[in-house]
């Protein structure tokens, strides 16, 4: 009970920080409130994000602004077909003066990484990045370096150009906690974008918090209470995506492979982060639903017939939530 009281006090204390962070990002990123919330959820639940959207939708700006707000290091890596793993993680260079090798760390050594157009680099570079994401450490030569926390990768993909790209294998996409789809802003929002971005004076954002504070928030999120009823609800959702364990919600005919156990883990952790952002010390079914599309859409593999018939994973997830009973 005491612990619970403590959590409530921490949530109240940190809630103003979340609001100030969101307001500050909104100064620069207009009309993408839902995306901002999802990125913060990813940050607080120790996840990595893959964003799919057309060029020019402020994906880089979003992460750059976030790094300014939490006063942390940020690197943008443009993935190209000739990129090598060493260009990403670093390499050992021979120093003639000293006659020794020294390690030159690559751009992966930053708190926030934007892996722009991840599908343009060959598989070996992609796997180097994904390994760093998973292990939170990098080995250069015979030395292993821990990556600084908070460490978050936000990778982008362009949905229309497939020529000259290397499609990420499903097993590697699965390592991203959230797959966010970013769309065009509305007419009014774009009007506001013109007003703010064409003055010639850059928009300055204030530093709101620190990386240490983000780590403390992560601890609080870890301690958010998840009842057994919610855990079973999450399992019912995930199992309904699997053919073998289907509980007959009528979508199994469209699914070749269902969501992995990572989906259950990530649905729980993102639901905790969503509860925290909404000033609650316990998870509710609406918290699970809040990030379900982002957690599940890249973990459900459709059958050939479903793809040919134009069925989308988002459509199936929507149907799934209409069928699975809330506890």
């Amino acid at each position: 009970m005491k612990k619970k009281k403590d959590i409530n006090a921490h949530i109240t204390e940190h809630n103003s920080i979340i609001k100030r962070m969101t307001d500050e990002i909104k100064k620069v990123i207009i009309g993408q409130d839902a995306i901002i919330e999802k990125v913060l959820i990813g940050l607080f639940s120790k996840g990595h994000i893959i964003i799919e959207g057309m060029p020019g939708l402020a994906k880089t700006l979003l992460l750059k602004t976030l790094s300014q707000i939490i006063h942390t290091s940020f690197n943008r890596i443009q993935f190209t077909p000739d990129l090598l793993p060493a260009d990403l993680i670093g390499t050992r260079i021979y120093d003639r003066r000293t006659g020794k090798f020294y390690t030159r760390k690559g751009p992966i050594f930053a708190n926030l990484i934007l892996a722009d157009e991840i599908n343009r680099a060959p598989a070996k570079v992609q796997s180097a990045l994904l390994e760093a994401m998973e292990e939170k450490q990098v080995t250069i030569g015979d030395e292993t370096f821990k990556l600084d926390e908070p460490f978050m990768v936000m990778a982008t993909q362009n949905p229309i150009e497939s020529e000259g790209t290397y499609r990420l294998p499903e097993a590697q996409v699965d390592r991203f906690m959230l797959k966010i789809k970013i769309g065009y802003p509305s007419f009014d929002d774009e009007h506001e974008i013109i007003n703010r971005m064409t003055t010639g004076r850059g928009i300055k954002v204030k530093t709101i918090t620190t990386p240490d504070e983000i780590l403390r928030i992560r601890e609080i999120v870890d301690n958010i209470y998840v009842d057994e009823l919610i855990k079973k609800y999450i399992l019912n959702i995930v199992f309904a995506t699997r053919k073998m364990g289907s509980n007959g919600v009528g979508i199994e005919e469209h699914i070749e492979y269902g969501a992995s156990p990572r989906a259950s883990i990530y649905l729980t952790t993102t639901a905790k982060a969503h509860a925290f952002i909404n000033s609650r010390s316990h998870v509710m079914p609406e918290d699970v639903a809040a990030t379900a599309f982002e957690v599940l859409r890249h973990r459900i593999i459709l059958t050939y017939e479903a793809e040919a018939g134009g069925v989308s994973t988002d459509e199936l997830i929507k149907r799934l939530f209409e069928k699975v009973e809330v506890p």
Partner: protein
Amino acid sequence: MNIGYNPEILVAAETAPLLRDIKPPKEMIYLEWWFIVLLILIFSTVILFTFYRNKSRFTEKSEIADSAVTEQRGHSNELKDAKEIQDEKEYYRVISYILRRHIKDKYQINALESPTTMIIADMAKVDASNDEFKIVQSVLNTADMAKFAGAAFGKKERERVYEDVGLIMK
């Protein structure tokens, strides 16, 4: 071509006025007695069929109405049974389920598969009375706190929730 004298044509000309009295052959007269009886039989069959069809529809409707009453009674019994549940979390889970099922049946809202916030948003769109809306909101929020946050509300709150749900289901 010279036709000349033809006695057959002469006879036809003389009998022409009689042609008006020519009657159809006997096979062509339908309005015989058996034909009228047949028509009556067909007509009465159609009437009887229509009558029985409507009667069965009436019976179906009353059966549906009966099953709705039985279902309603079943739901009320479930509510009474819920009162006996000692475990608070289980009590609120069952109460919330009964109420959400009632909302689903009454307003065709996907209440069993929706979280409380969505149910409340959907109820605002249907013609639920203000009192009903407030009671549903209050009961579901209380039940959510008991189910998902482990909150303990005590006997008084239990009774209030029970009475409220009973009131809604009347």
